[in-house]
């Protein structure tokens, strides 16, 4: 039931989940978002929390409300690349923070990332069993 990390505001996690769905192509520009109540039931969260997530998404220009019909994914040309860049930035920022906390210098971080990339390439080439 508890698919959220309750240490972080839940509305932020709902927003991220929707953004991920957009970037991954499961939600397309112009698609209708589930109603607040449906989404609340699906996530097992308070409807106000979903409402808040929808409002913030709208404020960020990710979705738009059409009066009386609900919330839709915004139909903007660069929505997906923008979101992808934003989310990638966030993932990398967390990685850098974590590496710095371990005492790695910037040059060492680059080396580690290159090594990890190399490793995952060879793992993929050998069928991903490694």
């Amino acid at each position: 039931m508890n698919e959220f990390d309750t240490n972080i505001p839940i509305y932020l996690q709902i927003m991220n989940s929707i953004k991920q769905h957009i970037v991954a192509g499961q939600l397309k520009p112009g698609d209708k978002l589930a109603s607040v109540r449906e989404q609340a039931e699906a996530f097992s969260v308070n409807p106000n929390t979903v409402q808040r997530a929808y409002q913030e998404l709208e404020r960020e220009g990710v979705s738009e409300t059409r009066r009386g019909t609900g919330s839709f994914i915004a139909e903007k040309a660069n929505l997906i690349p923008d979101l992808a860049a934003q989310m990638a930035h966030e993932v990398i920022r967390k990685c850098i923070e974590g590496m710095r906390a371990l005492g790695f210098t910037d040059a060492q971080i680059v080396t580690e990332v290159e090594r990890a990339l190399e490793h995952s390439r060879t793992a993929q080439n050998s069928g991903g069993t490694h």
Partner: protein
Amino acid sequence: MAVILETYSLSKSYFKKSALAGIDLKLESGRILGLMGPNGSGKTTLLKILAGLLKQSAGAYTVAGETDSNRIKGLVSFLPDRNTLYPWMTAADAIAFYADFFEDFDRAKANDMLSFMKLEPTHRVKAMSKGMIEKLNLTLAFSRRAKLFLLDEPLGGVDPVARERIVSTIIKTWTEDSAIIISTHLVNDVEQIFNDVAFIDEGKLILSGDAEALRTERGKSIDKLYLDIFEDR
């Protein structure tokens, strides 16, 4: 948003022993409040006063602007922390019983909820498990068109599957023009449905606020916050 509940220095004492020492709360419509605190902190006393089952020693409260305690009873639906149904009753008897008592009781909703809870109308209370009794009582409490729903420990002694049913029923029942108070110490299981939280200890409100704001501010879950606050007490 309309104010559903407002309490003003609500207090209760039994002779010299104080059970509630001046509770000031405000709850708006559409909100779900988690009332949390250890055993004996005053949660049930507070809910019983709001339900009109106990009389406060001092202070006052309003429900949907109403101050008359008899009229308030018509606006408040209470789920007690223990079963109050007669053992010989079937689920259908219990529904008929509630329908006789409460003008705002919605039989159709009760029957819908009964099947969602996977309970049979012919099932007798005395043959029900703890979880089934809890689900039946919740069905009855939620089938009223009340303004304020008070759920005293709705998850106590209930297995995880029944718990999930109960949580989703709470979300389904949620409406914009009513409010819900849930008392619990199983914080982790329900904190994601709370808008507001209130921590109570020795009859006093020691911390209250918006659940998401507290997560942002403290960087931790309501569950951890609860442990932090009550561990050293």
